[in-house]
């Protein structure tokens, strides 16, 4: 098993390399030069040229890429001009907030989604199935940012159950209860879409498995129906559900961008959108590469979980 994990980690190196190339190439397509963007359109040509030299932008592209990559490997992601702060420091701060939001949502949608899918499949065409199917349809059709806005309107403004926005109270203690009350609405809004997708796929994975011959075998052995569903069928269905969870983690992370905007959550998504509008390229580059790298590592964890579940995967 340790060998398998090591092998998967090693195989991530070319992927990470590829990611950095893709990001770098996309960013290099930006028309105009960053120095003008930083200094504004009234800057003198001399100043622009000097800044370009300082930023290393006068060198050929391949060389610039390797300088950038080399610096990143050493932990130097450059400096954000719009915030006048080290990119890595900013990204780390912001990513922590995103992780709390997206992580909570991911746990929520995994548990709720799989449970809803299993119940729905086990009671196919029953009342529970119909109700879940309808809720799922609603969930995957509603834009998460619109849902977030409506939740603010109802639960924060009208009912005053939760704060309107932010991660911490402006005044008062920054403790766990405060975090939970701020986290509830955005985490739920973020989880809804992914829950719908996971429930849908879990349902069809379960239906697929329940038709398999080995389920008939379990029944022929006299295994009680509850164990047939939860022990035999769900275990086999998890083989196709787990990769979906991995993909959905990416969607939760993506959806976090909108939710952070709606709830003023100080996460990496909002940072990126601001950075794009400010044309703060180093911050965009650094943020994207960092988050993508974390996602790659997360997917390795998913693969390892999959190999623990399925003995047919060669480790």
């Amino acid at each position, binding site marked *: 098993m340790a060998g398998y994990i090591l092998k998967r980690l090693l195989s991530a190196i070319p*992927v990470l390399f590829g*990611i950095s190339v*893709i990001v770098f190439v*996309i*960013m290099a*397509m*930006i028309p105009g030069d960053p120095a003008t963007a930083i200094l504004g359109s009234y800057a003198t040509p001399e100043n622009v040229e000097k800044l370009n030299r300082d930023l290393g932008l006068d060198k050929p592209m391949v060389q610039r890429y390797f300088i950038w990559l080399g610096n990143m490997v050493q932990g130097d992601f450059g400096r954000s001009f719009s915030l006048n702060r080290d990119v890595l420091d900013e990204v780390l701060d912001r990513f922590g907030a995103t992780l709390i939001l997206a992580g909570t949502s991911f746990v929520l949608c995994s548990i709720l989604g799989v449970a809803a899918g299993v119940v729905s499949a086990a009671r*196919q*065409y029953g009342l529970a199935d119909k109700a879940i199917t309808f809720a799922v349809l*609603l969930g*995957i*059709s*509603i*834009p998460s*940012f*619109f849902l977030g*806005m*409506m939740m*603010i*309107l109802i639960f924060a403004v009208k009912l005053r159950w939760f704060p309107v926005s932010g991660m911490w109270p402006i005044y008062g203690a920054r403790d766990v209860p405060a975090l939970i009350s701020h986290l509830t609405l955005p985490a739920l809004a973020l989880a809804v879409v992914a829950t719908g997708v996971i429930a849908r796929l879990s349902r*069809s994975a379960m*239906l697929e498995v*329940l*038709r*398999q011959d*080995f*389920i*008939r*075998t379990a*029944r*022929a*052995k*006299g*295994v009680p*129906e509850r164990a047939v569903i939860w022990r*035999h069928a769900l*275990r*086999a269905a998890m*083989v196709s559900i787990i990769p979906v969870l991995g993909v959905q983690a990416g*969607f939760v*992370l*993506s*959806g976090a*961008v*909108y939710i952070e905007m*709606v709830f003023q959550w100080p996460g990496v998504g909002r940072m990126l*959108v601001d950075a*794009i*509008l400010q*044309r703060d*390229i180093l911050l*965009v580059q650094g943020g*994207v590469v960092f*988050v*993508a790298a974390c*996602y790659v590592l997360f*997917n390795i964890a998913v693969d390892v979980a999959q190999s623990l*579940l399925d*003995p*047919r995967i060669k480790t």
Partner: protein
Amino acid sequence: MMDFLRLLARNRLAFAGLIVMGVVVALAILTPILPLAPPDVTNTANRFQPVLSEGAWLGTDHLGRDLLSRLMWGTRLSVAVGFAAALIAATLGAGIGIVAGFYGGRTDNIIMRGIDMLMAFPYILLALAIVAALGPGLMNALIAVAAVNIPFFARNIRGITVGIAHKEFVDAARLSGMKDARIILSEVLPNVIPVIVIAMSTTVGWMILETAGLSFLGLGSQPPQADLGSMLGEARSALITNPHTSVVPGAMILVIVMAINLLGDGVRDALDPRLKSGALSRPMPATKVDRKTIPYQGDNTDDSLLNIRALETQFHVKNRVYRAVGGVDLRVAPGQCLGLIGESGSGKSVTALSVMGLVASPPGVITGGAAYYKGEDLIGAPYKTLRALRGDRISYIFQDPLATLHPLYTIGDQLAEAIRVHHPVSRGEARARAVDLLKSVRIPNAESRANSYPHELSGGMRQRVGIAMALANDPDVIIADEPTTALDVTVQAQILSLLNDLRRERGLAIIFITHDFGVVAQLCDHVAVMYAGRIVEHGPTNDILRAPAHPYTARLMACVPELGQGRRELAAIPGLPPMVDQLPAGCAFAPRCDMASAACKTGDIALGTTQTGRAVRCLTPHTTAPVEVEV
């Protein structure tokens, strides 16, 4: 195509989605000629008019622009951009997927590594990076959304193409002299298009959401141009004071995406052949029973363990009724081995599965008859009773041992479970008994083999595990459903002799289902021949094989070559077995029988018995022994 539309129309939800989408698209097309206020003209004096105000049915936004007009123009833009993005992503992605899947090997490997690289990003990061590079704007948002969805299509279509490229008809096309390009266009593409359409119809909604999202962030359509996402984005600052400016575009997105999703599901259901046949429904824990009368057990003089009386099982698919089993009587006594022989579709497996309620339901329904086990009727017995007997008193051995064992549990665990669901024994004890069972079916190194997973065993070893599982609780009756059909002859011989030894040692009653007369001859004392859901002949194996009485039995035996008879012309039976949803009146074999008379094609022909313990369902059987028709 007509079939497709009919299927779609039958799905009421999808039809509703189709109507909503039709209205939305029609309005979007008509928007430029409708008498609407100009969408981009600001009038700050008139800002935040509420819904249903004079001259602005839906009110006005923070710049006093007419919301209805902006909504219509915005919808037009959002829907167009969503569809365009889906079309671009589907075309490019499918193209990449088909090339990778068809050529395979290194081409496939390199392309898919690239696709994996793109999928390593959470999609929004890639979209943000693309928008960051190209600059904010609706066209750029469209490009970004299309680009991030290409990998999804490529991967999906590649998987399907790999399956098709290995189909035999592609090989046949090669042998017909067709070149790769032509094979892709005329053999692969027509089979992939439904999948592309399904993938597209289920993702258009998602694309609309994504482009709206980018606009919401201010990275898509730029002011003053309205699309639904940017309308929401602009309304956000006035969410608390003037919620209607947010609700109007938000609700519109919800309605459109929901309609598209309903429609997409309908398209998928109509195009997916597996769903078309209604196969994707979950089998219930026990077969549905719907019988009018319960046949009497009869005189139980031969102390039969299992006594099946007038069993009828049907499959109800849509409005067709397949009469898979049409009144079967069978009985088996302790130590007896009864062979049930017939071609595929004759109802032999369904008969066997009906006994313990294991016929998949839906679509299976037991519509008549009874199955008495030691005097107790199993058909219609409560699930609790049935479960307690399954695997304990009556157990099954199935055909394909790879598919019938759970792939993720070790064989030791699966055997131990079979014991523990019926006996309250400890884990360790169950485990020890599992190892003993493996030894009793002659699996070498049973202790270590117990830790193997099914895929690690050969076919013959897996079937031994299947047999061990059936023996786990010392049952009275074993029903073996073609247990050696999937095996090679040399392995089949091993398994058959094992079964034979076990039944003699343990006095088991066995119902052995097969299509092979050789197997029946070697293993079974009695044999029942089935054709089109009914038993046509029944009696001691040796008698029937020596002198078959029913023309079907005789001709079936004659048309199967037997080893040791050398090269010969085979006596083929003309025609095909009847479909069990349109059985002819009278004898089902009459249309293929050269002895059939007019009487054979009318009325019900009873299973007549002779004094020698044989029974035959025929008006002109091949025997001189007197036949007494049962009254």
